[in-house]
């Protein structure tokens, strides 16, 4: 029981981090970035290459991974999303294609075998007969730290408030002197950094492989759909629902079924409540 609680909390923290970057884009830019999972993959591969192939210290690897994410965000916004002028169908289709292109590019460079990432923080602690890796604890703590920083950024800084304004009413924000283009660009950069960071932690929890982008994308999609668009509270709550559902179904039912509940949750909530559990709230 204690194990379920701890595992659930740890996993949910990670899922919150995965989902928040995706929510941010949906909320501010009003488009679904189906290539979001690819940020995670690029971040993870970059970290893997820098720290384990080149043997460069981990913090530098982490920073480099984050910059790759930021760069990907800029490029994606400049060359894909902006030219398509917020045409939802076009953005969804083109980002999905992009994700597969990135996946293929990764296979091209790193081949398609899975790679194991060394724990970011090695060591294990035993809690009530259950093994809890320091790595997972570190990932969760880092997730929470990043989420708090993001919250403060959105609430306290000028840029953050501009993001809020654009997410509520892009035209109104533009009229009051905010450059939506610039705000969108910043949001894509932040989303890219968050994705890449989440990717490093996610990879240290599972492994690095070329199809590792699908599962986090589905999780992010579920969290956004169920939690409502652009609600940080909703994101947190739903990330915990999904995290705990996974841990509970893995422990008590069958490990293979853990993704099924996430999918069912998406379908049931979308059909019953098209606006999500928490509706549309502020950022």
């Amino acid at each position, binding site marked *: 029981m204690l194990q379920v609680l701890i595992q659930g909390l740890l996993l949910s923290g990670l899922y919150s981090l995965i989902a928040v970057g995706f929510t941010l884009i949906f909320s501010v830019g009003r488009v679904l970035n189906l290539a979001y999972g690819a940020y995670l993959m690029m971040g993870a591969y970059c970290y893997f290459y820098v720290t384990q192939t080149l043997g460069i210290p981990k913090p530098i690897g982490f920073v480099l991974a984050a910059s790759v994410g930021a760069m990907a965000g800029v490029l994606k916004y400049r060359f894909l999303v902006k030219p398509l002028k917020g045409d939802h169908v076009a953005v969804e289709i083109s980002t999905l294609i992009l994700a*597969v292109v990135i996946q*293929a590019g990764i296979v091209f460079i790193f081949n398609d075998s899975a790679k194991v990432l060394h724990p970011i923080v090695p060591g294990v602690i035993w809690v009530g007969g259950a093994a809890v890796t320091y790595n997972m604890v570190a990932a969760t703590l880092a997730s929470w730290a990043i989420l708090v920083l993001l919250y403060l950024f959105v609430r306290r800084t000028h840029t953050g408030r501009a993001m809020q304004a654009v997410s509520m009413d892009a035209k109104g924000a533009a009229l009051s002197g905010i450059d939506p283009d610039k705000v969108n660009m910043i949001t894509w950069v932040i989303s890219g950094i968050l994705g890449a960071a989440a990717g490093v932690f996610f990879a240290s929890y599972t492994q690095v492989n070329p199809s590792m982008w699908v599962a986090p994308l589905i999780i992010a999609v579920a969290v956004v759909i169920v939690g409502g668009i652009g609600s940080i509270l909703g994101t947190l709550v739903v990330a915990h629902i999904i995290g705990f559902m996974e841990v509970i179904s893995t422990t008590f039912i069958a490990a293979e079924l853990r993704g099924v509940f996430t999918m069912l949750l998406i379908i049931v909530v979308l059909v019953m409540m098209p606006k999500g559990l928490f509706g549309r709230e502020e950022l």
Partner: protein
Amino acid sequence: MAADIKTRHVLLWAIFIGGMCLLPFVTTPGTLRTIIFANYLAIFAMSWDFLTGRTGYVSFGHPFLIGIGAYASAILSYRYGVPVAISIPLAVIITMIGGTLFFLPALRIRGSYFALVTLAFMELMYQLVQVIRPDITGGTRGMSGIQTITSGAFNNFYLSFALMAVIAVILWTLTRTRLGTALSAIGMNEESVRGSGLDTTKLKLFAFMVSACVAGIGGAFYVHYLGSIAPRNLFDINFLFTIIVAALIGGASTVVGPMAGAFFLTFLLEYLRPWLPGSERYFVYGAIALVLYMYQPKGLYQIIVDSLGIGKSRNKQEAAGDSAA
């Protein structure tokens, strides 16, 4: 039938079908096998396009429909010894029923959410097939040794081509009727279609049923051509990607486009095989599709039509952009 069909159209179809029928006498069995795959991909792409290209509802769940058709027929014939002549029609009906039940609520949801729900269906199916009754579905490894309808590249070519051509002609004829105009109008402005006194739910459901029917036929015949089935080959984003890219490269919201796109992609794959044997080829696929899509969302079809100056040069992109804004 009251479709807008001119002698020119009939002639072009006759030349295309006649030419294809002569192919087996001038090419190698290897090329024929490539074309067989292209025929099935064309069926899937046309199915996807009939829903998404027309009505504007993006389906990321087509592998789910194709998978239902394939699994239903495979299970019926492999596990229960049902003759293929019965299992395939049953599978198509199961695809249409199962698909409609799942998608009916999804048709109430608009835009991005529809795409997501269909994506969720595909992933759900992938996981369920492996877990629920693996003794029937074959679990993660799937099934092999499924009865084939006919053997040899020659026979299979004619079977798959006949199937593809019949479906293409039927879908093409449908799009030349007023129904085709109405379905496309939904993609442009659903409210205005409703405001013209038409029941859009009925129209969308019809579009979906046709799409599911074609997907079911394609899936069922395909599995009896391959003789094997595995969840990761079907309920897979790469498979979805291939279908969508085929439709987009050729030209969405046309029938000829997805068909041509499927052939183009399949042959591209064949040419690339010596250099890119693995899944790296998706890099080339995707890059081409992405650049083309950004340049002309209506694909090669539109580029060819524009460059030949067929019809009046309509400023489609601009008009579409204005109505979206």
